[in-house]
């Protein structure tokens, strides 16, 4: 803006008014400005949202919803990153290869973020095991800074990836090995310092442990990571999203079946903002906080999650059509954390 001193524009204002007292009315100018000023733009509500689309060649937030243990890769490529071997007790040894690499990712149309990633994607690949399985993660740091993987879950201290001696230097390797427990919806992230930067640059992912014995009821399962990006490094996020790309699910709604059980694994990995939330339009869902119990603790349509907090949400769509979901912090919603479900099938009244 051109900074007129307060004096010069007040000065002008006075003059404009005075001029109005004479031959022409400055007020009439203002009045004219007022009338009809908003006719056009009041109908422009659809103009909200970014311009253009993000290429999904590199990372598809929709594909991320339903992929775990590298199930999005062809078998020959998948074996490079994930192998499972049965063990005598009936559990599995699950071996993963996780690589930290620097990569520039597109987080809103035309906006590129110099991310630190696990396996070239943000969020990192989703790891999923059954309670009691042995998890063995070979971590290779090919990034430009020291990194670690810190898993949430039971594990011995040397597998914690948090203390200075746990840092894996660039070019270095470390094998994390532990039993998957307890069952629930967990996460993993880099715990190198400065912690805030290592997390907000993109080093995080989802770690799901399914209950052993009787599994959860079959459902359409969706991984939803609430995240944000501070593109100008002012400790405030410019972009918010579910699964990284701002407003992605506005253009590519999450397709679900009316009447089928839908299970959402939701985690808040937003930095800088204390809390984030998920609000689903037109329905309610059952909440299993941290997913560690088979008993739902509440039924609501809006759930608030602190940084690192997560929950499993279950619902069934009653009506076909589009349902919006977004953070109930309106600011986050309008900065990208907003999307749509699209339910198909015959309407089911319960």
């Amino acid at each position: 803006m051109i900074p007129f001193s307060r004096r010069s524009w007040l000065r002008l204002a006075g003059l404009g008014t005075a001029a109005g007292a004479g031959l022409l009315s400055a007020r009439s100018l203002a009045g004219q400005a007022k009338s009809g000023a908003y006719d056009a733009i009041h109908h422009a509500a659809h103009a909200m949202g970014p311009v253009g689309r993000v290429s999904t060649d590199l990372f598809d937030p929709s594909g991320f919803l339903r992929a775990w243990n590298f199930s999005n890769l062809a078998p020959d490529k998948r074996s490079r990153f994930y192998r499972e071997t049965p063990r005598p007790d009936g559990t599995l040894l699950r071996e993963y290869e996780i690589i930290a690499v620097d990569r520039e990712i597109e987080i809103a149309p035309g906006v590129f973020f110099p991310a630190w990633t696990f396996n070239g994607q943000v969020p990192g690949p989703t790891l999923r095991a059954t309670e009691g399985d042995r998890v063995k993660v070979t971590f290779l740091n090919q990034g430009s800074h020291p990194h670690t993987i810190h898993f949430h879950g039971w594990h011995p201290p040397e597998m914690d990836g948090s203390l200075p001696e746990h840092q894996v230097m660039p070019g270095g390797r470390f094998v994390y090995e532990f039993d998957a427990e307890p069952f629930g919806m967990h996460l993993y992230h880099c715990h190198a310092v400065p912690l805030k930067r290592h997390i907000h640059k993109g080093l995080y992912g989802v770690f799901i442990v399914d209950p052993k014995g009787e599994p959860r009821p079959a459902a359409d399962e969706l991984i939803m990571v609430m995240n944000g990006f501070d593109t100008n490094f002012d400790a405030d996020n410019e972009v918010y999203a579910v699964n990284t790309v701002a407003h992605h699910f506005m253009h590519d709604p999450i397709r679900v079946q009316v009447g089928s059980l839908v299970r959402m694994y939701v985690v808040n990995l937003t930095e800088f903002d204390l809390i984030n939330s998920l609000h689903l339009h037109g329905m309610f869902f059952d909440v299993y906080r941290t997913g560690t119990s088979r008993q739902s603790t509440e039924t609501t349509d809006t759930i608030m999650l602190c940084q690192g907090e997560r929950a499993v949400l279950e619902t069934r769509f009653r009506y076909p059509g589009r349902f919006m979901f977004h953070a109930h912090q309106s600011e986050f919603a309008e900065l990208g954390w907003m999307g749509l479900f699209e339910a198909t099938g015959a309407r089911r009244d319960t």
Partner: protein
Amino acid sequence: MKGSIVRIVLIGVAALGAAALPRGAVIVPAGDPAPREIRIVVKDMTFYVDGQDMPNPMLRVKAGERIRLVLRNEDAGMTHDFAVASWKVGTRALMDKGEEDALVFRVPYQRGTTPYHCTPHSEMMRGTIQVE
């Protein structure tokens, strides 16, 4: 006066000539036959010979042979190069998808194997060159 002008011209031309030398060029004597071209593509943090499926393949070359190695980066948002540390040759770092750089060099006469790698991702993007 005349002498000084001549001197200035000479100094100027020499300075321009020095500045105009392309960076990192390998000067190859004229008259050699055209070098053999090897096209390498980087995709999903892996080297491939263009059109082949073998990840980080072994490259076979002949001692004393002149090679023109063309590297193409197909990984958007990631920086890759191709370097042979023992021969002190390497492409420049390619930052954009579809970007290419060519490296012309003469294979040393010593037979055997030597490793090649991508400088930022040397632990996962590396392979062997066999000199026959």
